Structures are given as structure tokens and as C-alpha cells.
């Protein structure tokens, strides 16, 4: 549970940075960087002409779509991995619980208690420890 808070704070921090970057994009600071860049190249070498044009230039909408596609491919793989790990953990816990159920039942039978109840109690205890 502590981890979730830790990640949430970290994520909020990252979002704040991006929001700051995008918001400041609209006013002088970011525009300043852009203009300064243009001036820099023009001042240093006013005669330079690109000698090779892109073979294919997507329209701005297509470009955004392809960028989104790129991010989506990456996000898909990361999401798959996190889901995979989640499932793995669940299976592991389930089998641990099944094990402890078995043990609980045996112990209960030995001590002559009601087998079902004994099993459940012990499984619950075990799960608390696992968590």
C-alpha cells in the first residue's frame, strides 16, 4: 500500500512538470527558446540549405496519429507486462492459499476439530501473513 502512495506522488510530480512545460509553451519563455533557436542557426550560418528532403512527409494530423501509435505500441507492451505480473502474483497467492488450506485441514483433523472451519481459519491467517 505504501508503494501506491509513493507512485502516486511521483506521477503527480511528473504530470506537474508536463503541465508546466505545456502551459509555458504558450507564453514568452518557451516561444523565446524557439525564436532563439531560429536566430541561432540563421546567425551562425545564414546560407545553409537542407540538402535532402524527407522522402515522405505526413500531414500534421497523420503525424499526430503516428506519434500516438508509437506511444500506443509502447504502452501496450508495458501494460501487458504489468497485467502479466499481476496475474502471476494472483496465481501464486492462490496456490499458497490452497496449500495452507490443505495443511489446515490436516491439522484440524488431527486435533479433532471441525475440518472445514479449521481449514478456513488457518487459510485466512496465512493470507494475512502473505499480504
Amino acid at each position: 500500500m505504501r508503494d501506491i502512495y509513493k507512485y502516486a506522488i511521483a506521477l503527480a510530480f511528473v504530470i506537474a512538470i508536463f503541465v508546466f512545460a505545456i502551459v509555458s509553451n504558450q507564453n514568452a519563455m518557451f516561444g523565446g527558446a524557439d525564436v532563439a533557436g531560429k536566430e541561432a542557426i540563421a546567425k551562425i550560418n545564414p546560407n545553409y540549405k537542407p540538402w535532402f528532403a524527407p522522402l515522405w512527409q505526413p500531414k500534421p494530423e497523420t503525424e499526430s496519429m503516428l506519434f500516438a501509435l508509437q506511444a500506443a505500441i509502447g504502452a501496450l507492451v508495458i501494460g501487458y507486462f504489468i497485467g502479466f505480473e499481476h496475474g502471476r502474483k494472483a496465481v501464486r497467492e492462490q496456490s499458497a492459499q490452497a496449500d495452507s488450506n490443505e495443511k489446515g485441514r490436516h491439522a484440524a483433523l488431527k486435533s479433532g476439530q471441525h475440518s472445514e472451519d479449521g481449514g478456513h481459519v488457518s487459510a485466512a491467517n496465512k493470507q494475512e501473513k502473505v499480504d
Partner: protein
Amino acid sequence: MHIAEGFLPIEWAAFWYLASLPFLYFGARAVGKIFKERPEHKLTLAVSGAFIFVLSSMKLPSVTGSSSHPTGTGLAAILYGPTTAAVLAAIVLVFQALLLAHGGITTLGADIFSMGIAGPFVAYFVFKGLRLVRIPLGVSFFFAAALSDIATYVITSLQLALAYPGASFANSFSIFLGIFAITQIPLAIAEGVLLWMFFDYLQKSRPKIVAQCIGEAHAK
């Protein structure tokens, strides 16, 4: 950090291609070795490549002829070595050069060098160096990832300054560096935090894999 198509004079374009090729060769061999000898690492390798896909698509405008975005190469470099990261970054850069007209075929060598080689090597050695003086794992990882992002943009500035030296190389270099720094420092911090989050998660989820990677990430 992408330099736009045609924005590097032909001799510099060729130079950066030649500089990048040996790293890609060793990287391709390293990737092949992981697939053959450590198949249980395929998934984590794919995920570290996926971070490069996601983070390098978060683009903000910056210097004309180039752009600003995080690189995401730190995770792959630290887990699987800098040459492996070079191969993964090259895949992304080819995708962007051909489909997005972002970067370009002529500047691909230079882009691979800055994002795929300089950044990952800095990440790798910063991480190892900080671990050597017993800085905590998470802190080491954050600085390695953030500094690799900065290093990529320092190299891009260097590449642009070499191509456009103007009156003096140093002057030109500091101009490009100054412009990039404004957009890049906050992005580098964001990148460090994002990659650290995943590293922290991975370390808890797959401690064995992470231990293996950190122990033998650079085994040739």
C-alpha cells in the same frame, strides 16, 4: 534531439553513421545473445524497449531543425547494457525517420549516436559509478536516467555546433546548449522519475531478473 532531414552537411552525416555502426553491431550481437541464452529476459527486454517508444513520442518543440522529448533509454541501458539500448533506440529512430519525417535518413547516424549511444553509455556508467559509492539503488537509477537524457541533448548540441560552427565552435555549442537546456532539464527530471517508478516496481515484482541484469548487464 532529432536533427531534421538534410540539416547535417553530408560529411557530418557520413561521420555519425560510421561512428554509430560498431555500437549497433555489438548491440545486435548482445540482443541475439539475450534471446538465445536468457529467454526468460525477453519480456523485460521488450518492456525496456517499450519505454523508449512511449517516452520518445512525448515531443515538445525546441530548436529549429530539432525537437525536445525524453528519450527513455536509461532503463534498457542499465538493465541490458548500452549497446543493447542502442539497437532498441535505433528501431524507434528508424520508425520516426521513415513514417513521421521526424529526424531523417541522412541524420539517422547522428540521432542514433546521441540518443542510442551517448545517452545509454552515460546512464550505464553513472549508475555503476553511483552504486560503487553505495548510493541507494533508486537514487542511482533516477540520476542515471535523468543524466542520460541530458547527455543526449549535449551531444545533439555538439553535433549541431560541429555542423554550424559559425565564428567559433565553442560559441556555437554554448548557444545550442543554452536553448536546449530550457526545455530539457524539466523533461530529464520527468524522465528520471517515470523510469524510476517502473524500475522500483520491477525490482519488487522480479527481484531475480533485476539482480541478474545489474550483475551482468555489461557481460560481453
